[in-house]
């Protein structure tokens, strides 16, 4: 029998942080597989590199803080951050940028605030934005999806590109890269082309860009898995996607020639990934249910506003970070009515 008397409950506890994180990683598999399929080995190389850097950085900081290293590494939270970061950056990103991004995410954004559970900002998104504003060209040069590329980049070519910055011999950037669907749409609309004409390009699939929309489908599948496993609740993803669709739908109804169909917004960029995997990061999101609806809907609206009128083609990272700032305030004002209390809010 145990030496100290422990407070109830006494039964075995079914949930564990590491299992939660493992489920998230499992849910990422279909989307990541689709990315590797369409964008090549660079995706996998980035993930491996980011995970390695994240774990080493986490262990180093724990050592400096004189805290046990095992539990920090073993909770898989750094791995999740690393994977989310790695799939947000271009598959050709130079290795040292990935390194810099992960150090920023783990050391500055996560550990300087106290480690897991204490970071006010989503580490992966903060690192993404840090790199985007510092190295905008590298961060926006994307490979063309497999079926559109003139040259498929092999595994060794990817390694050479990432670690040496060397293009495959006899191949120009243009042969392997392409504008992302959001970039393409933004650019052509700015030139005054109507939607119908823009959509003639072979870049387009059913809703978004070819290849891209399958990546989004993969993440959607993973998101449904997370809902089914009750790792996340519907509040943030549904409110975020609904707000994005409603805002995009309203303006599309007003002028369908210069505004893309709402499904384009949902299946382009990081909307689906963001809704299920990034905005739902429990540490930096709202925790009350009403708060989560406000949080998610605000992210959806911000994504639409920045995509439509802002300076960047995509906006999920910015929108999430902006809402991270106000999440505690939203939580404070959306406390549920406590059982047996009459007022709506427990505490002014």
């Amino acid at each position, binding site marked *: *029998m*145990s030496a100290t*008397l*422990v*407070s*109830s*409950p*006494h*039964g*075995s*506890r*079914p*949930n*564990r*942080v590491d*299992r*939660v994180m493992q489920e998230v990683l499992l849910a990422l598999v279909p989307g990541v597989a689709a990315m590797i399929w369409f964008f090549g080995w660079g995706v996998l190389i980035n993930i491996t590199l980011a995970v390695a850097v994240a774990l080493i950085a986490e262990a180093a900081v724990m050592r400096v803080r004189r805290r046990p290293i095992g*539990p920090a590494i073993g*909770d898989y*939270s750094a791995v999740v951050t690393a994977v989310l970061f790695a799939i947000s950056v271009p598959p050709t990103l130079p290795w040292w940028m990935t390194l810099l991004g992960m150090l920023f995410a783990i050391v500055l954004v996560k550990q300087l605030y*106290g*480690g*897991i*559970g*204490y970071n006010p900002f989503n580490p992966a998104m903060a690192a993404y934005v840090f790199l985007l504003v510092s190295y905008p060209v590298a961060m926006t040069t994307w490979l063309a999806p497999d079926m559109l590329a003139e040259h498929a980049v092999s595994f060794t070519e990817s390694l050479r590109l990432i670690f040496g910055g060397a293009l495959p011999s006899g191949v120009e950037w243009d042969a392997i890269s392409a504008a992302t669907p959001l970039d393409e749409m933004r650019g052509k609309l700015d030139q005054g082309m109507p939607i119908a004409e823009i959509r003639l390009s072979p870049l387009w699939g059913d809703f978004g860009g070819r290849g891209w929309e399958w990546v989004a489908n993969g993440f959607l599948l993973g998101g449904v898995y997370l809902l089914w496993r009750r790792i996340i*609740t519907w509040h943030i993803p549904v409110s975020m996607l609904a707000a994005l669709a409603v805002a995009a739908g309203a303006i599309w109804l007003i002028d369908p020639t210069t505004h893309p169909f709402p499904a384009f917004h949902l299946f382009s960029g990081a909307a689906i990934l963001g809704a299920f995997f990034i905005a739902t990061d*429990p*540490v930096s*999101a709202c*925790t*009350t*249910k009403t708060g989560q609806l406000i949080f998610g809907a605000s992210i959806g609206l911000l994504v639409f506003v920045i995509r439509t009128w802002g300076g960047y083609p995509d906006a999920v990272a910015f929108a999430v970070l902006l809402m991270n700032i106000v999440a505690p305030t939203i939580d404070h004002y959306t*406390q*549920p*009515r*406590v*059982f*047996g*209390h*009459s007022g709506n809010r*427990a*505490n002014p």
Partner: protein
Amino acid sequence: MAAIQSLLRRDRLWTFHGGIHVPDEKALSNGRAVEVMPLPKRLVIPLQQHIGATARPVAKVGDRVLKGQLLAQAEGYVSACIHASSSGTLVAIEPHPVPHPSGLSALCAVIETDGEDTWAELPEPITHYAQLDPTEIRERIRWAGVVGLGGASFPTSVKLNPGPDQRIRTLIINGAECEPYITCDDLLMRERAGDILAGVRIMHHLLGDPRILIGIEDNKPEAFEAMRFALAETDMRGYTEIRSIPTLYPSGGEKQLIRILTGEEVPTHAIPARIGIVCQNVGSAAAVADAVLEGRPLTSRIVTVTGRAIAEPRNLEVRIGTPVSDLIAHCGGYRERPRKLVCGGPMMGFEIAHAEIPVTKPANCVLALTEAETPDPGPALACIRCGRCAEVCPAKLLPQQLYWHARAKDLDRVQDYNLFDCIECGCCAQVCPSHIPLVQYYRYAKNEVWAREEDKRKAELARMRHEAKQARLERQERERKARLRQKKESLDAGPGKSQTDQDAKKAAIEAAKQRAAAKKAAAAKAEETDDA
């Protein structure tokens, strides 16, 4: 159509927020009939087994006591009588370890049993209670020492006396038994449904004919059928309904069960009587029947002895005061070394350090858990703010915020987040992926708040005492000055009198001088004789 609608509404069940599904483990112990536990050699009967004041001993050490004899009288309104649970000799009234989360000792009456189990002379059964004044019946229930047997052990007679201003519309009988493992109420309902209903009928009379709702979780179909069958035999069908409620922990919590059956919420910091509802456990109802219809005090209860470390888990009818170790031995001892002994269920029960403690009135379960059943949760990790705790909280609190503030010892903030609405059901801790002992934090914070309030009360008392003392000293000083002033005034006012006074003083001084001179002379004389 309207009739159908109202019928539908009558059967309607409501839900409460949150709650969790836990493996109920009831099959371990509900397969056998209740067995009467043999008489132990020694009974250790605590004098406080209830909420309220400790009972005052009325039997003397050395007395021969009989079964059912009053050992200690209820002291004050919220208190309960304690009876001898078998015949024998009262050998001591002394502190003894009792089932309490603190593991501390409390005053107990120790009886060496004589093995005869002779009953004391019992009061007459009251069968015609409907014609009697409710006060008389309540007095009987109070004498019998009946308390809430669901675990809270609040004196039943007090609960059955809501006062003249409070009309009770609904009496709820709690047969939910939502805690995993525990099956004592299940077996009681199966075996003594008629007695339960007889007790409920008495409560119905005492509370002024309210409607009666009996709630039983749907994992106890035999108990439900037994109760339904018994109800059909009575004249209570017109105002009594038995409802099968979905199995969801903690549906047996008083406020949760009231919500499920009536849709009403007991206001914060209030008792259910405020909204016209009284809630009683099935075991208490049977004890009321025994007390009123048989004249028998509460001297035994059904205890579930279970857990996978127990060789033969089952329910035992146990005399109050029987050592827990005897119960375990009677169930074949341990199958394997238990990692934890728990008094009560796994969700809300408390761990006990050893089995050498007596069974008390609220002790519904003795749980011996194996390593597999209660694995070490490991060190608590950081809260990842996942919010699962808030999803399952039946009080709709924000356990996470309570945790942060309790951890920071911010006693004002924990109260802002309604710490005292927490019923300590343990749902939050059960689902926490970081294995944070949340309930422990809340209990700690509650104790700190109580301690602070006690300190405040004491400080206030000390301040009042100090001020009273200050005021007294000032008053005395004022009075002294007033007396002096008065004296002086009276001196100044009466010169004639003062003349005589002065003469008397002069005379006194003169006399003293003469005495001193005489003394001096005598001393000088003595000196002379010494020298010579």
